[in-house]
């Protein structure tokens, strides 16, 4: 994975219209972004459309990236995640079978694959996730990493949608309080 300085330079050049730099940015970051998109949008053809749309947005919005708002990779990843979520929420029916049921995302975060160190404050978030009720934590992590909706989670945990909503709100409020305390 490319370092922050390289990505910042590429974004600045893309903002000035550098198409070659967009290709370079694509080569450096598309596996990470595609990985995120594909976990959420499981239809590969649709996931590819989302990926292309994400880089067209980056092409248009590169100048809006402000270094003081944080490192560039999470900024790019957030665009990808949001477009992937938009793409699955537009469909009424959740698509396809899950790829590998029961992925332990928290364990992956503790023992990360390449690239996880690019995200700041990993330990703080891990510590705070660890303080949540395990089922509530799974709810948050499945929503975030796999794009599961409240309805998906209700089926997954065999609970009413309103219960899921309560769990999510309780967990998110707990995370916020905890992150503010540890940072």
């Amino acid at each position, binding site marked *: 994975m490319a370092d922050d300085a390289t990505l910042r330079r590429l974004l600045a050049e893309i903002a000035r219209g550098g198409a070659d730099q967009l290709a370079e940015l694509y080569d450096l970051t598309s596996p990470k972004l595609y990985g995120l998109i594909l976990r959420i949008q499981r239809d590969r053809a649709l996931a590819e459309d989302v990926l*292309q749309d994400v880089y067209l947005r980056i092409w248009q919005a590169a*100048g809006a990236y402000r270094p003081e708002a944080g490192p560039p990779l999470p900024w790019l990843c957030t665009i990808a995640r949001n477009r992937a979520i938009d793409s699955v929420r537009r469909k009424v029916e959740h698509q396809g079978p899950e790829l590998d049921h029961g992925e332990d995302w928290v364990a992956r*975060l503790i023992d990360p694959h390449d690239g996880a160190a690019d995200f700041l*404050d990993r330990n703080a*978030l891990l510590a705070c996730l660890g303080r949540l009720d395990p089922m509530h934590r799974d709810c948050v992590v499945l929503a975030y990493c796999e794009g599961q909706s409240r309805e998906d989670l209700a089926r997954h945990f065999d609970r009413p949608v309103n219960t899921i909503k309560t769990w999510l709100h309780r967990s998110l409020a707990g995370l916020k309080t905890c992150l503010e305390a540890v940072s």
Partner: protein
Amino acid sequence: MSGGRPGMEPTSERDMRAAEYALGTLDAQDRAALQREASQDPATASRIDEWERRLAPLMGAVPPVAPPPRVREALLRALPDVGGAARDELRQLRRQMRRWQVAAAGSGLLAAGLALFVAVGSSRSPAGGRYLAVVQGGGALPALIVRVDTQTGLAQVRPVGADAPAGRSLELWYVGAEGAKPLGLVGAAPSQVKLPQVTAPDGVIAVSVEPPGGSPSGQPTGPVVYTGKLIAE
């Protein structure tokens, strides 16, 4: 959510909506509503930003997957091929726009900047070449309604609630390959302006806030904030 007026929700509820947006659990309708709200309300946008930052480390847990090469090829083919001079103008205006968005977000002065970018490119022309844009100045009511007809080469500008900031004028521009050309001031009454003979693909129409009587330099100098969306009629 409750579907009521967002401004009336207690802070914690607004924060939870932003949190669920960042988490991804809002439905399509609520997501779209919050995206719209964030584009007009810097406080909403920054609540979402904060939540996205809080949760971002989780993205580190998801392993990369190499996309098939066809995506890269399709992406590079899809990049718009804009001519050099027009591109420079567009870039300059976009930069100015972004600066103002940043400034407006910081100072809550969104309503002070009124502007519009309208692409009049033939590549995106709807049948009949007519577009409608409703320009908002940060409030709920439209400030300007602009009708662009690329076939007759005329743009009609109808102010609805457009008050130029005290002591300033609103000026309409066409920006094409030869640079920005002033089209005239936006007055209190509806007016009609002629577009230049050559309306190149990817030309834009912009409204900027200028000193009284219009820009002294013949180029846009004032705040430019994207607030209008172009709708094909």
